[in-house]
């Protein structure tokens, strides 16, 4: 619906007043003038050259772009896995990219849910344990022990939601790609994040399975009003999102949303 124009020097206070955003929910995650470059030997490789982005509450945003355009990099910055060279990231009104390490860890655990292209489940743990792992990370040994029944129930529910409740004790390598990706989604959601960041969640799956995953994401967005930011290079999949942005030469370029 909106056209996100690259505004390199947008002052970080105007977004709410723009007329076209008035009808929309409040921006939940805002990126201002993000720049990121990688240093290889002597020469710098600029990847992001000033990205401005607003993610609104409950929206399904997709980001497309060519391979190597920096989609993953942007998603990592948004999820606080990496720090931008220039620019800031705000959660609501609070700047979050320059917080101390401990707070960042907590935000990653509480606010963001990550889904990766290669699932990235922990191979030593069973499906249930994988899904439980964000909760385990959150709690101390004692805290976890006290609430273990409740937490397991929570994880089981989440697994049931992605349709894997019959494979609780299987190890990741005993699951198919689609199943692993569902497990990864369950893991990302179990900690009740406010924003789900998905980096090519279907990139490694065949069309049919990818479809299922997309449906699952769309369903979550629909029913639970979960904010989803999905990175993909598949334009067709991107069209299912509320809004699609394209990353070109290190800047975001707006695209017409499908919905």
């Amino acid at each position, binding site marked *: 619906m909106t056209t996100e124009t690259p505004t390199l020097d947008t002052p970080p206070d105007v977004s709410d007043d723009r007329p076209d955003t008035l009808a929309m929910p409040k921006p939940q995650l805002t990126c201002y003038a993000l720049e990121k470059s990688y240093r290889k030997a002597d020469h710098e490789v600029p990847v992001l050259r000033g990205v401005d982005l607003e993610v609104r509450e409950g929206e399904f945003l997709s980001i497309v772009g060519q391979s190597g355009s920096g989609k993953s990099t942007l998603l*990592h910055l948004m*999820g606080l*896995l*990496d720090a931008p060279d220039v620019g800031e990231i705000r959660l609501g009104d609070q700047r979050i990219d320059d917080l101390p*390490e*401990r707070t960042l*860890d*907590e*935000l*990653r*655990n*509480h606010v963001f849910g*990550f889904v*990766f292209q290669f699932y*990235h*489940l*922990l*191979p*030593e*743990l069973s499906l249930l*344990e994988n899904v439980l*792992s*964000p909760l*385990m*990370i*959150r*709690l*101390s*040994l004692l*805290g*976890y*022990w006290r609430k273990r029944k409740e937490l397991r129930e929570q994880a089981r529910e989440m697994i049931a939601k992605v349709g894997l409740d019959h494979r609780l004790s299987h190890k990741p390598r005993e699951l198919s790609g689609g199943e692993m990706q569902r497990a990864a989604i369950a*893991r990302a959601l179990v*900690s009740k994040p406010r924003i789900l960041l998905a980096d090519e969640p279907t990139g490694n799956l065949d069309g049919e399975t990818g479809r299922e995953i997309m449906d699952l994401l769309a369903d979550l967005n629909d029913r639970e009003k979960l904010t989803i930011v999905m990175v993909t290079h598949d334009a067709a999949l991107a069209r299912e999102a509320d809004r699609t942005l394209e990353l070109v030469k290190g800047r975001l370029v707006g695209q017409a949303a499908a919905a």
Partner: protein
Amino acid sequence: MYKLLLCLRYLRTRYIALACIVSVTLGVATMIVVNSVMAGFSSEMRDRIHGLLADVVLESASIDGHPDPEAHMARIRQVCGDDIEAMTPTVEVYGMLSFQYLGHWITRPVTLIGIDPEGKAKVGPLKEYLDSYREITDGDTVVRQPLRDVGVPAGWTLTPEAVAHREAVKLHELQYYREQDGETGRIDPSTIVEQPGGETRTAEREFDPSEFDTDEPGEENVADDAPTFDEPPFDPSKLFEDEIEEVDPTAPLRGRLFVGSGLVSFPQEDPQTGKVKTIVMVRPGDDVKISTVTSGRPPDTIHFNATVCDVFKSGMSEYDSSLVFCNLEYLQEVRGMLHPETGTRSITTIQIKLKDFKDADEVIAKLREAFPPGMWSIQTWEEKQGPLLAAVEVESAILNVLLFLIIAVAGFGILAIFFMIVVEKTRDIGILKALGASSRGVMSIFLGYGLALGVVGSGAGVVMGLLFVAYINEIEDVITWLTGREVFDQTIYYFPAIPTAVSVGMVLWVSFGAMLIAVLASILPARRAASLHPVEALRFE
């Protein structure tokens, strides 16, 4: 929570970690075994070195000694009586032991110690070392039961076996001399014991008047004569007649000895069987010749014959091949340590046993104050054997350092393997961080992993080491049987079995050390894991 879970999972699924555990286990087990055996050896060695030495020894600076031991002992008791359990006065002097073996005279330098066996037994072990109180074994089979009961106090009497042996020898000699009467041929080599009558008849009479004192009640003879050895004071033929006519030649002489086994026996390997046998040259009941000096001025050489009452074996070859115990009164008489008028006896040494050896330093200090240093030297047995004890201690310290290197090697193994695991787990570390795990959390996974390896490894090592120590002699048997070579040769080490001593402190120290090394070795990899950048870790292929 995830830390613990992952730790355990990594432990269970990484078989390479087994290598770490095994190396820690082996290191710990080796250290425990070697330390236990070393401690066993060393305490056995200490016992042996202590063996015939009393806790504290008050030694006269002169071998002439000092008169009136009772006064000295009273003084000692007055100074530190509370710490003292027992005391015995002795006379210590250098001498020579001579005996005939296969027709040849063998003379050896010895330390001659005049003791009262009962008194000596109170200040330290004595009976335990005497042959007649011990069972003689050859390997596992008992060759001879103890001849005397432990309850019987140590004394200068002959066992019935020794008496029988003596009678047989004397009878043989008598017969021999009767047959050879008039001839001056060599003595049959098989009769290895000199015949008092025969010997003194020829050359040695004037050197050795005491040799004749074979009659038991002849006390006054010696009392009168002993201080004046220089001149032949009485008519030897009269004594000689006494001896021949009245005295039973099989009765033991007045000089009685306990001789160190190393002085009168030697090991010999049987060329056929390869077994080592002990050849005994002098046995209880035989007579030997002792030479020493008088306490007069200038000291004169004296010689006397004495009957060997027993052979002792303390297990400390230094003692067994140099000490000869003699009956104190007799030694005092022949050395002229009896005052001609008052009849007081001199002694050179007072051996003291303490109630608690820990008080030794205090006692020594008090005694040194009470007894002038020029006249008396006061030492504990440890001081007397200082260099030897120090050698044992240094040896075990060096061995410990070397052994700890084994565990250090295990530590480096852990370091290498952990680095490998960290590299292998790089992506998982990235995932954990993406899920919100802190750097410290990731680090503690690997530290905990190291600790777990250390705990499991050293636990297994402790069990293995203790089992090995418990069954060390059985294991030795098996190895001997497998290799056909005796691992632990009993003739080399006096011990019948490998001595071991397990100390709880040592086991704790070793296992904590091993755990510490395991944790230390995991610090570097853990820090590396913690410092991994989440994105780079995730991108890691």
